[in-house]
């Protein structure tokens, strides 16, 4: 592997990411499976980085999962997305920052379609007006929330309490990055680092002390495939995809997996449990699984947030091996203790600052 070659590719894919004043839209999957990640994200943005992040109470799902399950027609999806734009316009924001990769991909795709087919945009404007009376401006800047954390990775690194380094050996943790398919595969120029060697998570890991490892199935889909997971009869395909990835990364002995898509960490986490149940196979070291994290969780850990406030107890595959390696100060016995009241949730989640 020649790092210089990758650096040359990364240089070709610099994307513009807004500096401040973000309009945040949430992710259906993240909310249900990794709610702590979105909470931590807002805390980092607002408290650590002093950014203006606005969330509109009336925004909804973009319909992405329904759209990619093909039960929602493209025009419906475009109009729901147009409504999101309208809410943003009305709130006086122009930098759209979705939490979800499917949404990010969908917004990117729709803006591209409208660019090439202005008549489609006009039709959507008419339909939105008819259905809701709303009008909209298109976002000036569209960046996924992982792009924004990437942008401020150095600022986060400067405040870090922990590094992604094995405190016993002094060696950097070996990290596998997994990028959501819709981040850059459809429009490589819209992703930091492009589609083939995405830099968005690699940049964070490098900055926070870890070492990214490349492995043959790095670009492979986690296997969600929308209908391929959502319907039980199809899940054999879904799990097979993740298994392909685990088999491929195993020889590299990764300490952890970091992801930027809401769904992927859930699948990479749960499928390890299923494969172990079905075949008695584990892919981590010492007979353990490979801990899987969202990038918000990793940022939170680096900043010294409590693992149980980050929601790491909502993972099926234990995250403790990583906590122990980097030396997180945490209380193992409180993992499932729900009586301890959250230290920051009220302040940072419910109110738009």
């Amino acid at each position: 592997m020649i790092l210089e070659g990758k650096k040359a590719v990364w240089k070709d894919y610099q994307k513009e990411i807004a500096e401040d004043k973000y309009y945040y839209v949430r992710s259906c999957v993240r909310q249900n499976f990794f709610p702590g990640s979105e909470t931590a994200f807002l805390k980092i943005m607002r408290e650590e980085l002093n950014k203006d992040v606005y969330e509109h109470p009336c925004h909804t799902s973009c319909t992405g999962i329904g759209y990619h399950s093909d039960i929602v027609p493209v025009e419906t999806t475009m109009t729901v997305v147009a409504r999101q734009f309208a809410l943003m316009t009305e709130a006086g924001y122009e930098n759209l920052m979705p939490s979800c990769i499917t949404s990010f991909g969908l917004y990117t795709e729709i803006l591209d379609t409208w660019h090439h087919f202005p008549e489609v945009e006009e039709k959507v404007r008419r339909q939105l007006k008819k259905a809701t009376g709303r009008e909209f401006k298109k976002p000036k800047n569209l960046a996924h929330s992982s792009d924004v954390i990437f942008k401020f990775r150095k600022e986060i690194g400067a405040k870090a309490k922990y590094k992604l380094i094995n405190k016993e050996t002094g060696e950097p943790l070996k990290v596998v990055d997994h990028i959501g398919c819709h981040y850059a595969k459809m429009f490589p120029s819209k992703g930091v680092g492009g589609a083939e060697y995405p830099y968005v998570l690699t940049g964070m890991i490098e900055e926070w002390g870890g070492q990214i490892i490349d492995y043959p199935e790095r670009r492979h889909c986690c296997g969600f495939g929308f209908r391929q997971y959502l319907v039980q009869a199809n899940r054999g395909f879904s799990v097979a995809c993740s298994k392909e990835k685990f088999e491929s990364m195993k020889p590299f002995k990764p300490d952890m997996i970091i992801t930027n898509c809401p769904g992927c960490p859930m699948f990479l986490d749960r499928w390890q449990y299923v494969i172990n149940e079905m075949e008695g196979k584990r892919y981590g070291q010492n007979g353990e699984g490979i801990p899987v994290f969202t990038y918000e969780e990793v940022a939170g850990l680096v900043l010294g947030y409590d693992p149980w406030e980050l929601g790491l107890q909502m993972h099926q595959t234990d995250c403790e091996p990583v906590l122990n390696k980097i030396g997180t100060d945490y209380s193992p016995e409180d993992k499932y203790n729900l009586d301890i009241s959250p230290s920051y949730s009220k302040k940072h989640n419910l109110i738009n600052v």
Partner: protein
Amino acid sequence: MGKHVVVIGGGVAGLEVAGQLSKVGIEVSLIEKDSNTGGHLNKWYKLFPDRRKSSEVMEYLNGITVNKGINLMTDTSIEMFNRKRDHFSIVTSGGKELIADAVIVATGFDLFKSARKEEYGYGIYDNVITSADLEEMFRKGEISLTNNTIPEKIGIIHCVGSRDEKVGNFYCSKLCCVTAVKQAIEIREFLPESKVFCFYMDMRMGGALYEELYREAQEQWGVSFIRGKVSEASETIDNQLLIKVEDTLAGRPLKMKLDLLVLMAGMEMSEGGKKIAGIGGLRTGENRFFAATDNHFGSNKSDIEGVFYAGTCTAPMNITETISHARAAAIEVIDYLKCSN
């Protein structure tokens, strides 16, 4: 006649056209940006279809430069280029002004920069090389991997940078298929224990003796041909390359581990040619090569009277075609100079 012609580019086409013009007593200034003439040919080991040594062709071409009436200027490029009524004023990088009655553009091609096909990992994965790198190995007489071991399984990917709108090249470079076949045979000659696989979309064996060479590769050298465009390569923990392709004629995806991957880089309009097009106001086509006035009987003519094209600056060509095209350019120039008398 006392005429002076400037030839831009000292590769195969430039040398040949200069030689032909000097033969009939026309004074030629041959301008070459590198310190040697011969262009890409310098890097090649043997040539298709008969696998003669490229040095033999080089010998013929270098012989031309000593012709009477050829003023060879190496390490020189063109900075300005204007038509002034009945002649051209050309300013070189050395600041010298040349006055010419006609100009021949023979700026040739550049090999496609294979790193642009990111998914094949050229410049990133250790043992991914281009057809040009392989020729270099042939010239050194040694095919080896970065860890100095000998490869056993070698894959050749056709159409790298050709027939691919992802890199903006819709056209076929037309010589890569036969180059792949030639190189596959040569690998087998060098490494009799090796296995060679060519991954192609179509085998475009449209030149004299090409198909015969293809047959020889199958029959005598046991080269395998698999129809499918390789989707990606990645590096395994033992430094092998895992490739993914559809074996389209079996209708099944196929994965294979290789020790060495060779990319058949296509041909593109040269950077030098683009520069000349810019300063000379010469028209280029959608494929970015120079656009001739007529595809059938004006392939040497530009839109500017007195400016002609020779060789691969207009389209991918093999050496035979390049030499023919250069000779045709000489005839056009001689004709033009006669008429302008």
